[in-house]
């Protein structure tokens, strides 16, 4: 089995320093919606300068290089033990090279490990065996500021009159956006999971964030709700950084999963504008980056 440590290191470098083009495009388009001379517009202009600078210098877009979330789709025959070892080596090296900030802190003893390796769970790695021939590694870096404003609701939620249906889902998602204000580094992207248990629901709300901007759910009911939520969130006037303005949410992605008859969870993962996600594909002898 091939050693991919260096290729994974390159994936980390790209993810941390080069924002995906679909995200950048949305940010550029949103500038025109904000008043010339406003703080909101100024924020977006600085954000775009920062995107160019980070890409040119291979420096982190955001100093909070976040929780590294890896999804590995591997064909039959690959060893997940070895892949995990290579991902962890690459992560430690990426930290040495300042592509990543040392971000793993022991929660009991408050000690930063200094190399982004914390116990067995940091970085977070999900393995999925696939039927194809290509190995695909996806990486998302999700900062703490936006992670902190994520919310989970157990419906019904009487405080805002949210029942156990899509009307209730709409209400709690809008509530989450209002409560987040600018603290998750707006403009944000919403990942929403309906159903599951508390754990699976939150995980799915992040998994949907691996899809491209503008990708709509195949179910027309959910696709319509995705569009509607983005539109309504932007009516709240929170704006970039919470300065006030028209651009609060860039996109919404919703997924559903099975639930117990007793439970109806809605999980909202808020992704900051520094929506760092990249992919590498090992195709035969070749490694392709998106």
């Amino acid at each position, binding site marked *: 089995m091939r050693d991919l440590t260096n290729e994974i290191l390159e994936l980390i470098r790209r993810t941390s320093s080069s924002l995906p083009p679909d995200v950048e495009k949305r940010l550029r388009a949103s500038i025109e919606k904000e008043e010339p001379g406003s703080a909101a517009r100024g924020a977006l202009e600085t954000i775009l300068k920062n995107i160019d600078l980070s890409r040119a210098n291979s420096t982190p877009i*955001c100093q909070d290089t976040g929780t590294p979330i890896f999804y590995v789709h591997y064909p039959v025959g690959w060893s997940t033990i070895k892949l995990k070892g290579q991902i962890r080596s690459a992560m430690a090296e990426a930290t040495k090279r300042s592509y990543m900030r040392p971000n793993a802190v022991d929660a009991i003893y408050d000690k930063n490990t200094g190399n982004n390796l914390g116990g067995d769970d940091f970085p977070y790695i999900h393995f999925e065996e696939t039927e194809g021939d290509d190995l695909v590694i996806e990486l998302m870096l999700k*900062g*703490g500021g936006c992670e902190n404003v994520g919310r989970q609701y157990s419906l019904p939620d009487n405080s805002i009159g949210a029942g156990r249906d899509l*009307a209730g889902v709409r209400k709690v998602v809008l509530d989450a956006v209002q409560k987040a204000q600018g603290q998750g580094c707006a403009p944000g992207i919403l990942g929403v999971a309906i159903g599951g248990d508390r754990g699976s629901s939150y995980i799915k709300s992040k998994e949907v964030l691996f899809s491209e901007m503008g990708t709509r759910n195949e179910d027309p009911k959910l696709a319509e709700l995705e569009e509607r939520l983005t539109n309504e969130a932007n009516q709240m006037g929170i*704006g970039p950084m919470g300065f006030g303005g028209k651009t609060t949410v860039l996109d919404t992605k919703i997924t559903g999963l099975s639930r117990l008859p007793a439970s109806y969870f809605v999980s909202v993962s808020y992704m900051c504008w520094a929506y760092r996600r990249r992919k590498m594909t090992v195709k035969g002898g070749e490694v392709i980056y998106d």
Partner: protein
Amino acid sequence: MKQITTPISDEVIRELKVGDAVNLSGTMVTGRDAAHKWMIETFIKKTRQPQGDDLQVYEELKKLLNGSVIYHCGPVVAGLDTKEYKFIAAGPTTSIREEPYQADVMKHFNVKGVIGKGGMGAKTLKGCEETPGVYLHAIGGAASFLAQTVVKVHGVFKLDFGVPEAMWVIEVREFPVVVTMDSHGGSQHAVVDEASKKVLDDLLAQPY
């Protein structure tokens, strides 16, 4: 665009109003969750005994923070092996986590400005009126861009907190911020929060 250099006088602070864009220059100190908890417990509420170099750092901080600025930031720093430190990425972190501590730290050390993102609450706003001081909003996530305004790293305290949580003493040149909380009770965050809550209530009242 106003140009302000640390240390900052009360007079300059009182002139600042919500919405003012400022380019800040001079020396400032980074400090976030661990640093604020440590300052409050060890020197302000004194619920914890000073340990190690605590008292020595305290004396240094009193001089550095007097009239100066605390920056809520956990930077990416190169040169950790050689101690020739360089800021690589240094945007603001979310400030609201320091809400329990900030006003007391401002008053104790005579801190004139707090830089962060997301804004702070009523207790800090009162601290801004009393100190007097201001809350200065930097652009969250603009880390490579803001690191370029850090022209020198003078040194670091409490590196045992870890790189992000340590207190870095830095020299900045034209660091761009917006005043979002002033010393006259004005808060852009309170205004946006209230206005967005009204829209939310209207949206929630609409049928699906």
